[in-house]
């Protein structure tokens, strides 16, 4: 009897000791290493790992990449609250960064502003990485959102010209309807995040119709959602997504997956003609088009133009990107941020992971694999006005909640515009009053 008791007790102590030894070594090695929580997955993650290996080779600093896929908010949020923050992380939205910054959990990156690299960042990136004047996030690579993907073959056949103003774009889509085409492939479905592709539309329109200053006020909730300029943006949006203009009618949009929508600008299986001719989506959507049409060539079969502005002036650019944030200020972390802000590493990144655009203006346009990305990169470099995706910058209750569902309701046409905007406004009021966000 005693034997059995002894055996189980020894066994237990054994596992506990082994475990403690393991966790002990973990801490001991942790001194030199930089831990980096990332949202990258799949091929992106493989490229990111190879870049980090290069960093380790060049600097001797070990990096442990901890992928959490699309669960960034849960995984990183609870780790930080639980007192286990990693050294660094990349977050895709300034809203999340601002949450950490407000609670004083981030290390200031203001030292970065004094480096030469800060001057090499394309316009708008220092601003979107800042919270209340302090820099907390540095973006090494971005994607341009203000892009319209179109079927180049049909454009050439029918003699359509790439529009230079929103007026021309509206005329063009009427012409397409006259020729029997649906102008836009439009899909809102994205699981729990259904609606976000529509928020990008509204941000692009808002940035043009109301101007960048009002746009900033809107994103920071300094003007209410019931402001007439917000309503105007929704009504302009309606000109593009009404029943005549989108494939399958507006009600179909919330059942079409955002990733699938893009493929319809080229003829899909068993069809002679494409179901639509244009699709407004960021640079990354090229992966999805290539998946669905492995034989189609970008630049020949399909191409992009920048979503135009109202006048002939150069259009403002809406972008998104991954903010590198730091929870600890140590030399290794500074080294890593500087490394990723440099032109060399960004060039490697955009070469190996097509779809990403370098933020450092020294990266030559020749680094990009095709003209489409080159044009997007040039637009990002030269844009007089560039803004981070607004819904990503809003507090998450709105930017990843009410705004999404508001767009879905609007596109479905089930509620009146004023009802929708009042609902978002009252949610925003609650979010700001409850202290989840500050004005």
């Amino acid at each position, binding site marked *: *009897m005693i034997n059995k008791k002894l055996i189980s007790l020894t066994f237990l102590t054994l596992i506990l000791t*082994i475990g403690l030894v393991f966790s002990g070594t973990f801490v001991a090695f942790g001194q030199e290493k930089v831990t980096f929580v990332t949202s990258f997955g*799949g091929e*992106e993650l493989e490229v990111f790992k190879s870049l980090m290996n290069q960093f380790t080779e060049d600097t001797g600093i070990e990096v442990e990449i901890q992928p959490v896929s699309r669960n960034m908010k849960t995984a990183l949020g*609870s780790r930080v609250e639980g007192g286990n923050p990693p050294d660094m992380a990349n977050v895709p939205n300034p809203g999340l960064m601002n949450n950490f910054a407000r609670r004083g959990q981030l290390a200031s990156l203001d030292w970065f502003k004094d480096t030469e690299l800060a001057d090499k960042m394309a316009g708008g990136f220092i601003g979107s990485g800042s919270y209340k004047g302090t820099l907390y996030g540095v973006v090494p690579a971005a994607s341009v959102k203000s892009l319209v993907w179109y079927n180049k073959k049909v454009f050439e056949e029918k003699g359509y010209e790439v529009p230079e103003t929103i007026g021309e774009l509206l005329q063009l889509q009427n012409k397409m309807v006259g020729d029997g085409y649906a102008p836009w492939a439009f899909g809102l479905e994205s699981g729990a995040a259904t609606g976000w592709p529509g928020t990008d539309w509204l941000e692009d329109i808002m940035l043009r119709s109301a101007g960048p200053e009002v746009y900033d006020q809107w994103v920071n909730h300094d003007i209410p959602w019931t402001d007439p300029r917000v309503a105007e943006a929704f009504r302009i949006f309606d000109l593009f997504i009404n029943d005549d203009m989108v494939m399958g009618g507006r009600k179909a949009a919330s059942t079409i997956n955002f990733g699938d929508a893009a493929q319809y600008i080229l003829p899909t299986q068993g069809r002679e003609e494409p179901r639509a001719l244009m699709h407004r989506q960021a640079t*990354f959507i090229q992966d999805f088009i290539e998946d669905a049409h492995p034989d189609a060539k970008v630049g020949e079969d399909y191409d992009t133009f920048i979503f135009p502005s109202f006048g002939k002036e150069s259009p403002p650019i809406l972008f998104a990107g991954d903010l590198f944030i730091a929870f600890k200020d140590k030399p290794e972390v500074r080294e890593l941020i500087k490394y990723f802000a440099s032109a060399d590493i960004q060039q490697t990144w955009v070469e190996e992971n097509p779809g990403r655009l370098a933020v450092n203006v020294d990266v030559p346009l020749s680094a990009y694999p095709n003209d489409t990305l080159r044009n997007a990169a040039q637009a990002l470099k030269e844009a007089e006005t560039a803004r981070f995706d607004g819904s990503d910058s809003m507090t998450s209750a709105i930017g990843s909640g009410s705004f999404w569902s508001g767009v879905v309701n609007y596109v479905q046409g089930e509620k009146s515009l004023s009802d929708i905007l009042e609902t978002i406004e009252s949610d925003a009021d609650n979010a700001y009053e409850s202290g989840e966000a500050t004005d």
Partner: protein
Amino acid sequence: MIQKILKLFSRVPLHVLVIILCIVWLLPTLGIFVSSFRPRNDIMNSGWWSVFLDPANPQNYTVQNYVDVLFGNSIWQSFLNSFIIAVPSTFLSLFFAALAGYAFAWLHFPGRNLLFLTIVGLIVVPLQMTFIPILKIYSSTGLYGSYVGIWLAHAGYGMPLMIYMMRNFMGGLPKELFESAFIDGASVWTAFTRLVVPLSKPVIASLAIFQFLWIWNDLIVALIYMPDPSKAPITLTIANLVGSEGQSWHLLLPAAFISMVLPLMVFFSLQRYFVRGLTAGAVKG
């Protein structure tokens, strides 16, 4: 005779209902299974049912997706990691739950019922609520990121339900057995190892299956307590196959089946315990 036929017919609606339910439950799994063998751009272009239009055409099928998942990633390592996480966690929780169930059923100590009710009440506490406090404890004790940490977390999360099931089953064992054992001079420990454990085999086996499957399929606990990717279980590695915008999601299809192989084996080899254990403790003997 007529009665028999009538009886047979009266069961028809029930059978139809059962068959419909089976189809509804199995259809998505079948869809994933068929899709996992389709080429990448077919998956993106058309629904899985379109293979049935031309089922004999070999061009409709490929094992490339399986090859990509099995040989392009650290899936084997994480398969092993899942074992390293699931087996000790299951063992630990069974060990403690059996001891606790025995104590609550047969040992008399003050506050026994109150304590039992408290533990049973913990069944309704969502585990998400515990992440931050436990992480704080783990970071001060060095358990964070270690296998021991995740074993203890899984064991703890399974404990309330397991103790409840164990107590109910063990409470149903005949009282006379214990009386005669104690008259013969058995200690509390002897009664546990010689009487309770052998007699409770059905409930122990079914809880072992439950707990093992739950841990094997878990993503969130591993995501929170296991930052080190070289120790990550298969669920976490599979989640990372997909890009941050959802690129390459087609790899999830074969990955889901690879991860499912083991739970299915466990289930089919032990299913008689599984069904028996479901009613364990339902009726007091």
